[in-house]
């Protein structure tokens, strides 16, 4: 598991969803190299679509 604390810049999201987002980001960085930005974005977006319904975007 990636060490380091996630810093939330701005948010309008339930605390539980925020936790999901930071957990998934951490997981994505375990799976992919930090330079593989599109793969990381794809992973987080797909997981959020699955967990919280379709229509999520990730950059």
């Amino acid at each position, binding site marked *: 598991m990636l060490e380091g604390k996630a810093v939330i810049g701005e948010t309008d999201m339930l605390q539980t969803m925020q936790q999901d987002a930071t957990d998934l980001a951490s997981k994505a960085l375990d799976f992919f190299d930090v330079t*593989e*930005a*599109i*793969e*990381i*974005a*794809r992973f*987080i*977006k*797909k997981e959020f*679509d699955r967990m919280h319904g*379709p*229509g*999520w*975007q*990730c*950059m």
Partner: protein
Amino acid sequence: MEEAEKELERRSKFLNSLIQQKKKAAIESEHEHESSLKVDVRACDMPLPLQNRAFQCARLYLESMPPANKLDSKRLALALKKEFDSSYGPAWHCIVGTSFGSYVTHSVGGFLYFSIDKVYILLFKTAVEPLDH
């Protein structure tokens, strides 16, 4: 009388040549500027008129920016988003930067990813669902 006519003709030719030179210089500088703001479409699902509108809007913003100033990505994104929301209806999203990855769901005919003068711009549309009350 003949001398005066000759003088007028000479002046007229001189003025014409000045005008031509000025026109030529203007065209050259325009081409120079255009080449310095080269648009490169990376990925696209958007009609040509909308693409051109996006390029035009981005160009206008970048041209109006003083050369010494650092690019304000947020303001360019806002300008493009507002322009497309008002012209083609909600909801458009715009991301501007020099280094980012993305993965998005977009409406049909509402996706454009392009670069202009080392700046990368992602512009896409999503369907708007009314909130359930």
